[in-house]
């Protein structure tokens, strides 16, 4: 079999080193010219190996002479090339997108990134790997794919919100090309803002995140959009039941620069129009997303890219109210190679999330606007002094402003405008992390992140509270005056040890700190959810997690087994006091309670990565609890997302050349819920009596999704796939929520009513490419 590497290989000779050992460095990209992060590179004869960084840059130490280099970019299979080295050499490698079986070279990939990568609880995949998985209404959604992994729980039926290892939904740092996304959901949470066409790959850190990341307790979800093809123009698109997508990519200057523009628009309200019920058909529900990215290679050592995203949701119930929200993100990245030992990445990013909610009635006409805005800069220096150390040093600074909710009204309404003051804060971070390879079997990543967070004064009031939560003192600070600064050191440590060529063990400890809190009281993502920064009273949330795992590759990397255990404690967790009126203008701090949390569990994942039949089985056994004085008589209670058992089975089967069949099944213990233990009458109505928080369980959740996809056109210039799917194929009525009502048929009887959302949701979609 012929060598699979394409001719996109550029060899550049660099300054010769004195020793017999030389460095082979370069970029690993797809044949389209897109960088492939974290690909593994290995010299077959010598056994030396390296992993590329996030920007696809690798450095492999080699002795003088001929080598066979094997490159494994996840999703691209293993590809090899011959290289002869007698000086430090720069070699950029473009991997063919067509999966190739490895030919004459037999590789025992003992140092695959899965085994030796020291970070625990790390998942990465390319979007194209998830292409065939069933998707609700045919909308591929990366956040829902993540929910099929152990340790990641869905926020609810059909919801793109997620919980990682017992953390709440706001404890996930979601980055799109480095810019934070404050609300990653469309349409009450049923879709995510990530348009699958625009996304290249996704990394999720649910265990020990390296010191490069911080700001949230539970996880980091780092999403990168595609750079665009720098060779030729391509158009991708899709027509589905609820949306249409179109992407265009191509070179600006061939080999040097590229662009990608991708858009998606939904038309859910078209379906509402089909209803004869005027209560339904007069409503509006739609959203759009636009992603754009431009990348330039300036010479051999510089790469600049500009990425932007804009999305907007509109939801209006005629005559009642309308809600609109959206994210706008932008970022500029500059990647520079000083030498094969020093690389820098510098980025500036901007994020703006805003929502407005309005009501229009005869006598009331009112709008509330709220916003969170964020401008940040980051620089990272990656220094590879030798083949045993790779040091990351960086710093970042973010300036953030939060507008909590301005009320405005039009004529006719007797409404006073209230201008809630904007709160400003600054968050700085410095970090250093070293990936150290002390021996052939060991890899250790250790570092520390130092964060300084300051809340600034201005027009807003700050308070002193007594233990009952009543305001005892109100304070004013000048603009730009620092009200309170929190400095925290976050040590991170993880290590892997290779037991034998096919298996390894890892362990890690990490501390994470979060200074931005989403105060949410509804059980689903709601427009009234509110981001607040730490203040003199709201303290930073802190989590400590230890985790350990066992990893095994079987059958020449066909099978992958991962088992991890973790224990996590959380401090300064926030919840509302009972009966808090979240929208009044009282001091927010007086409406909150603070406590602690703990989460522990075991996660197992068995993956089959190769062959016609691929997929995985995941199982999680876990516990998540909170203890907050003032709730549940100050005793520990189950967090809402505490689910004892969680199982996911994901399969994909290639049936001949044309068809691909896929199915996924999930099962989990019902959410912890609070149910009444009694009832009584007040003001001629039933009021319920509660004795404990989250003491009951919803019925268990399970669901099967299936899909079949066929290549209907496979021409050289035009390719088209048709996908059929059914979400919740056996029509399980899963409990989304429970409520209680007085029976109409049996007077005096209180009925428990289960609300279910999605039952047999069929879909058909067509994707094309030319």
């Amino acid at each position, binding site marked *: 079999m012929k060598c699979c590497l394409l001719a996109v290989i550029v060899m550049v000779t660099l300054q010769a080193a004195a020793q017999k050992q030389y460095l082979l460095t370069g970029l690993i990209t797809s044949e389209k010219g897109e960088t492939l992060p974290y690909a593994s590179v290995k010299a077959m004869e010598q056994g030396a190996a390296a992993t590329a960084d996030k920007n696809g840059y690798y450095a492999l130490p080699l002795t003088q002479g001929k080598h066979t280099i094997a490159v494994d970019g996840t999703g691209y299979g293993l590809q090899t090339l011959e290289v002869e080295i007698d000086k430090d050499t720069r070699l950029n490698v473009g991997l063919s997108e067509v999966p190739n079986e490895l030919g004459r070279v037999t590789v025992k990939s003992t140092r695959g990134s899965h085994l030796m990568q020291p970070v625990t609880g790390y998942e990465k995949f390319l979007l194209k790997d998830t292409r065939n998985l069933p998707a609700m209404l045919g909308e591929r959604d990366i956040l829902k794919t993540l929910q099929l992994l152990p340790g990641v729980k869905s926020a609810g039926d059909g919801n793109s919100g997620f919980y990682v290892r017992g953390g709440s939904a706001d404890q996930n740092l979601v980055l799109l090309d480095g810019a934070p996304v404050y609300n990653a959901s469309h349409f009450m949470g049923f879709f995510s803002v990530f348009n699958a066409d625009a996304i290249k790959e996704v990394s999720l850190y649910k265990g020990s995140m390296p010191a490069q990341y911080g700001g949230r307790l539970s996880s980091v979800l780092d999403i990168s959009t595609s750079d665009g093809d720098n060779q030729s123009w391509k158009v991708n698109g899709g027509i589905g039941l609820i949306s249409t997508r179109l992407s265009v990519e191509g070179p600006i200057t061939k080999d040097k620069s590229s662009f990608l523009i991708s858009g998606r628009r939904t038309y859910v309200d078209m379906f509402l129009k089909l209803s004869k019920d005027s*209560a339904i058909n007069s409503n509006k529900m739609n959203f759009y997303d636009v992603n754009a990215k431009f990348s330039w290679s300036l010479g051999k050592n510089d790469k600049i890219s500009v990425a932007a995203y804009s999305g907007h949701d509109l939801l209006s119930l005629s005559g009642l109210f309308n809600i609109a929200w959206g994210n706008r993100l932008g970022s500029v990245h500059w990647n520079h190679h000083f030498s094969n030992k020093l690389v820098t990445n510098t980025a500036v990013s901007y994020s703006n999330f805003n929502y407005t909610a309005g009501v229009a009635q005869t006598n009331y006409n*009112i709008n509330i606007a709220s916003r969170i805005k964020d401008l940040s800069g980051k620089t990272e220096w990656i220094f590879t002094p030798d083949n045993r150390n790779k040091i990351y040093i960086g710093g970042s600074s973010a300036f953030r402003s939060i507008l909590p909710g301005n009320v405005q009204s039009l004529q006719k309404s*007797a*409404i006073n405008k*209230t201008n809630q003051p904007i709160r400003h804060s600054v968050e700085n971070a410095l970090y250093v992390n070293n990936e150290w390879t002390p021996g052939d079997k060991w890899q250790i990543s250790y570092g520390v992140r130092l964060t300084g967070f300051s809340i600034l004064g201005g027009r807003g009031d700050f308070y002193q509270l007594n233990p009952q939560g009543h305001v005892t003192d109100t304070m004013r600070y000048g603009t730009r005056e620092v009200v309170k600064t929190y400095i925290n050191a976050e040590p991170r440590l993880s290590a892997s040890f290779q037991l034998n060529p096919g298996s390894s063990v890892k362990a890690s400890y990490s501390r994470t700190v979060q200074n931005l809190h989403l105060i949410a009281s509804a059980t689903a993502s709601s427009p009234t959810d509110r981001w607040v920064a730490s203040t003199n009273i709201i303290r930073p949330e802190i989590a400590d997690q230890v985790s350990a795992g066992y990893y095994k590759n079987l059958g020449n990397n066909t099978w992958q087994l991962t088992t991890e255990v973790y224990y996590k404690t959380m401090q300064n967790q926030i919840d509302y006091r009972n009966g808090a*009126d979240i929208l009044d203008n009282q001091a927010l701090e007086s409406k909150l309670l603070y406590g602690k949390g703990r989460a522990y569990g075991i996660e197992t994942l068995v993956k089959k990565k190769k062959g016609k039949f691929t997929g995985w089985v995941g199982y999680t056994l876990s516990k998540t609890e909170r203890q907050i004085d003032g709730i549940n008589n100050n005793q520990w209670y189950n967090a809402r997302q505490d689910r004892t058992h969680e199982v996911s089975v994901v399969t994909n089967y290639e049936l001949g050349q044309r068809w691909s069949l896929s199915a996924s099944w999930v099962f989990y213990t019902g959410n912890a819920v609070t149910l009444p233990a009694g009832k*009584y009458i007040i003001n001629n109505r039933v009021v319920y009596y509660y004795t404990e928080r989250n003491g*009951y369980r919803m019925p268990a959740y399970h669901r099967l999704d299936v899909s079949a996809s066929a290549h209907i056109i496979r021409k050289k210039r035009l390719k088209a796939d048709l996908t059929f799917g059914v979400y919740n194929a056996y029509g399980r009525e899963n409990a989304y929520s429970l409520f209680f009502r007085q029976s109409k048929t049996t007077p005096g009887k209180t009925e*428990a*009513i289960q609300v279910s959302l999605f039952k047999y949701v069929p879909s058909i979609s067509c994707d094309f490419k030319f």
Partner: protein
Amino acid sequence: MIFPLKKLWALPTLFCAAISCRKAIDIDFENAAPVYVIEGKIDNNGYCSVLVSLSQNVSDATAFIGVDSASVTVTEEGGAAVSLRRISKGVYQQTYKGVPGKTYNLAVNVKGNLFTASCKMPAKVNMDGLTITTESISGSRRYVANVQYADPAGEANYYNFVQTINRKKAGIVYVADDRINNGTAVTYPLLYEGNFADSYSAEIKKGDTVQVEMQSIDPVIYKYWYSVKASASGEDIMATPANPVTNLQGGALGYFSAHTAQYKKVVVK
């Protein structure tokens, strides 16, 4: 708090209502030991009433489990205690006129348990009118009662509205504050928020007699009604359930409210 902002809560609910299916399920409820429930009211018209009852199991047929043998007194600050008479099982009353601006103390002694509460009767805000308008709500036209009043500037005011349709109390809680309309002439619509469980909803029809009682209430009572509505009504699928925030001391459920009361009636034409 003004009504439209609160409506935001109903939004996910309404959306879910549009696409969901519902079915009654059996739940094996825990049965907590019964606790005392006290609903105490004193207004400026001479109506002073205290209901003393016990909570019951969720699966029992809903009933008012009145408690006799309670000794109930209401005391004006600096005044003498006034005893309430038992009228029927669990119902204690007295003709006793409260005065705005005064604080009242309730004491209920039942089988060795003492429950107390204190509440200040706020100044009266005049109820200027009651009108019926039709509003388009999710595409359908509905009658809505609107209360007119001039909110006094310079102080925080809280209101409770009790709507009765053809002499039947609807059971829906309508409370308002003056957060965003302080000092203005307010027209407050008693708009049903569209919960899933419409156990207590009542649609107004042509020819109906709609009566609204407007109460000026103490902030602690506003908090009570707000929390009943938000977290103890059993009907809001989004809220975290909890017992309402009470002003009663001693471990009883319920509230003690000293409020001004005014009534207006209108026939829907």
